[in-house]
């Protein structure tokens, strides 16, 4: 540290000296040697064709959101299904509501765009029923979803069903709100074959 400071002080005194220019005797600059440039042969380029003018198509959507899922991904399927690929049922019911049909139509469209995709359709029930009856109810719900997707043109060999009865609730709230969420058919998409 000490040496550095001392060195710095020495440099300062040197530069202070340099700011006072010593008188320099004037010198005549040598005259530049001028040479004529070599002649360049003239090449006549053809006139470029005028650009084709086209009207841009009108902007129909905003720029792709980098936060959106990659098209063709499982996340994209969920997104296109309206957030999650799940449709909901009434208490002890297995028929599809108009909203559920709408969601399933979008699922079917997606699966037609991506023909390698397959799905295991899970049927679920709420806890307000006994175990085996709910397994049956879940099977019926899964079958309702599968039958609708088939009716929308999805090949049956791309679909399989499984019932979890009341064994896999997604909402722990012990209220009609929670139970309603647990009565669902979930389209568990696979990008490979049906396992």
């Amino acid at each position, binding site marked *: 540290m000490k040496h550095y400071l001392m060195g710095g002080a020495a440099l300062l005194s040197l530069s202070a000296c340099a700011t006072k220019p010593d008188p320099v005797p004037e010198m005549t600059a040598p005259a530049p040697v001028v040479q004529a440039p070599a002649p360049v042969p003239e090449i006549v380029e053809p006139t470029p064709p005028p650009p084709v003018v086209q009207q841009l198509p009108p902007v129909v959507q905003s720029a792709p959101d980098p936060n959106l899922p990659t098209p063709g991904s499982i996340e994209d399927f969920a997104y296109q299904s309206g957030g999650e690929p799940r449709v909901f049922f009434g208490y*002890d019911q*297995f028929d599809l509501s108009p909203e559920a049909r709408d969601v399933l139509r979008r699922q079917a469209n997606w699966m037609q765009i991506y023909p390698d995709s397959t799905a295991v359709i899970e049927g679920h029930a709420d806890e307000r029923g006994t175990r085996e*009856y709910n*397994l049956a109810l879940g099977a019926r719900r899964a079958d309702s979803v599968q039958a609708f997707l088939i009716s929308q043109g999805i090949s049956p060999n791309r679909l399989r069903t499984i019932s979890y009865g009341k064994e896999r*609730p997604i909402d722990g709230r012990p209220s009609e709100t929670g139970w309603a969420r647990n009565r669902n058919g979930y389209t568990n998409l696979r990008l490979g074959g049906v396992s």
Partner: protein
Amino acid sequence: MERTYLEFASAIVKTASMTLITRIFPLLAGWLLALLLSLPAQAQLEIDITKGNLDPVQIAVPDFLATTQSERDFGRQIADVIRADLERSGLFKPLDPASFLETQTNIDYKPTFADWRVIKADALVSGRIKTESASRILVEFRLWDVFAGEQLKGVRFATTPDNWRRTAHKASDAIYEALTGESGYFDSRIVFIDERGPKTNKTKRLAIMDQDGENPVYLLGGSDLVLTPRFSPNSQTIVYMSYENNRPNVYLLDIETGRRELLGDFPGMTYAPHLSPDGKSLILTMERRGNNDIYVMDLTSRSTTRLTTDPAIDVSASYSPDEKKIVFNSDRGGSPQLYTMDADGKNVRRISFGKGRYSAPIWSPRGDKIAFARSSGGKFGIGVMDVDGKNERILTESYLDESPTWSPNGRVIIFSREYKGVEGRSEVWSIDLTGQNLRRVETPGMASDPAWSPLLP
């Protein structure tokens, strides 16, 4: 286990035991007592299903007599297990040993009955442990009717020292049988589903324990979802449903050998398994394209026969003990109700007509009752009815009671009870057929889907 039963007395047993039976079942009037003496054992069973307030029999069970320290340990532990078994049955009140006046020194002499009458003991169990060799102990006891001053039973078990607990349960069964006229259920096990975690992230594993909650062990190694185990009524075999390989199907497990077998690989889900009383066939539900129907599988030939064809849900089939009838759950009438049919699927008849929705029926091993779960007004309870649906009685009610199963003697029903909320516990509870003696069954953690074994051999 090697064992011998030794009856010390016989001639006076019957008369004396009737005295106590009238105390256990106070509804028995004097004229009924005379009738019972001349009737076979089955006639007494009817007493159990009358709902009367029972005055538990006060029973004294001193620690079994012993000479050495290790014998004394057995003598105390065995008496503890017997007292606990009898207390849990609700039919007995074991008296506090601190109140005992007499300390017997030899069980081969008559007790001083007056000393036992003073502390209001109705019955006395005098026991003794003897060591025969390092690998063999004798467990002996005499059961006394204190009021009559007579011996009701004298039994000697010969067993290995590490088998003391089962021997104690066998002694409890012998006492229960001598005093009630019915076979006991203490030397038996309960298979169940062990549960861990909140409802939204639950792990379920197949497990088994003694009926008093001791010796719990897992029966399967994996983490697959496993549901609804049921015992064979006549062997140490169980059937259950598993999601192994994401294929929900019915499996058979021999719990002695550990041999496990998938019972048929069907295109749809198979579930709700129950073995027939003779253990030779399996009744189950098979799902195809959303339709759930009942099938019976011959376990020898593996051929299946379809018993129901209704497009409605047909599920949870259970045989009558004589295998002639089947009770099951169906929503063919618009809501889940109970139905019976012949074993070939004919003569379907609805038997539940009460308020609410009925499911999970199970035929009593005695043959005269069907237990079930009923939901009404947002509550779930366990009930019983005659096999024609008459005399329905709801025994319990809670947020969620389900999965009833019978004790081997058909006197007790155990069931799953689940509490409200995502952290709501799952527990096993028991209640007598009479509607009395509701209590929680000890389990190592949360538990559901209990099924009682037959009495161990």
